[in-house]
């Protein structure tokens, strides 16, 4: 099982904004059952895109400023970012669909 880096307001700049790779952010919360169900899928994607994508997760309860910055109104939400700016929202929830979406979006 891969580890997905947990990002918070303190390390957001280092982990996301300064990343050379595009960053896929999984907005989640511990009480959210669909988020828990999605996590193994996200963990499975991480090694597949290790060379082209960084994947992190943000707990919206612990990081209200990031929740507001990305205007998160429901979870789970998957945002693809570059230099900390949102470039696409991934709406799929199966690995098959997510991989197809990422293949279209990533250089």
């Amino acid at each position, binding site marked *: 099982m891969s580890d997905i880096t947990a990002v918070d307001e303190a390390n957001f700049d280092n982990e996301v904004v300064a990343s050379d790779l595009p960053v896929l952010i999984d907005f989640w919360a511990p009480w959210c*059952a669909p988020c*828990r*169900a*999605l996590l193994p899928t996200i963990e*499975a994607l991480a090694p597949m895109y290790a060379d082209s994508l960084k994947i992190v997760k943000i707990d919206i309860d612990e990081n209200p400023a990031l929740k507001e910055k990305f205007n998160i109104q429901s979870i789970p939400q998957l945002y693809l970012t570059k230099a900390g700016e*949102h470039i*696409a*929202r991934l709406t799929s929830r199966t*690995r*098959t669909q997510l991989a197809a979406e990422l293949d279209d979006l990533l250089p």
Partner: protein
Amino acid sequence: MPLRAFLGDPALRAETLKRVREKWEARQITPFIFLKWSTKNPIASLAGTIAETQDPGQFVARTGITLELALLCETLINAGISFVDDTEAPLGFVMRGDDAIWSFGTEWLDAIEVDDDVSDVVTRFMPAFLSQILSDDFPLSPQTASGVRAVAHEIIDLWTRELGGEIVSRQEWRAVRANALRASETSGDPEGYPVAELVESLPWPLTSIAVEFPAICQKFLNSYLQVLAVRFLPEQDQIDWIKCLVGARELSRARGDARFADASDEDILNHLPRVKRAMLATQQPEAVSRMDAAKQRARPLMVPFLREQMDTILTLLRRDV
């Protein structure tokens, strides 16, 4: 890497079984779909109780059992149990389920002998599970689109080759994934969506998808229960639910539309009034109550299927095949 169940220690096996059985029979364990354990919180999952941890790595290190096997067993149990609010109960709810479901809570653990390597049980279970869903006996068989069925057979064929030791190329998997996406998208009967979405989730190498399988299975079982439950609803509710299932697909497609790139679901639904009406109709408190009641009535219909899956796991654990 081979695993040694109970770390090769008969005393650990005996202690684990005794501790888990006592709590399970006293209904002090809640069958969840994820690892939950805390010394401060009385609510613990079955897998959490087995290893007394909610750390996935520690679970394997303490038990010699894969977490996906434990979570798969717990997911099957969870699908057969109703959680009913009860303010007088210690945890605020009571659990109701068939004895055939409850008994599996310790049966699967009891079927594992000291030193067994159970690392391949989930990968061997998956083709059997998908085959059972494709059988004519499966209640959603008439609603399963022929294209979905064909892709499911392609997946089973590739998995069978993998189990025979063959390495299936990435190109072959990629082709099946493309077929799965197409088949799922064109699956027209809303009551066939659960199988279509399950099949769409699965076209990956066995060892790669096994870790994800309990979550995929849980989602499928939940959708399956919902379809069964719709049949117990009054006619207007049935119409609303079918519209809602179709609407959820439309919403999902719309989320990927460039013009809605920054829009919330609420904003998107404001552009799709027909979908919004369908979804709101099923979210009214009275409609939700009727659906909950329908699920209570439908859940016993799932018991034979769930028990069949449980028996397949027991057979694999006992190496009877």
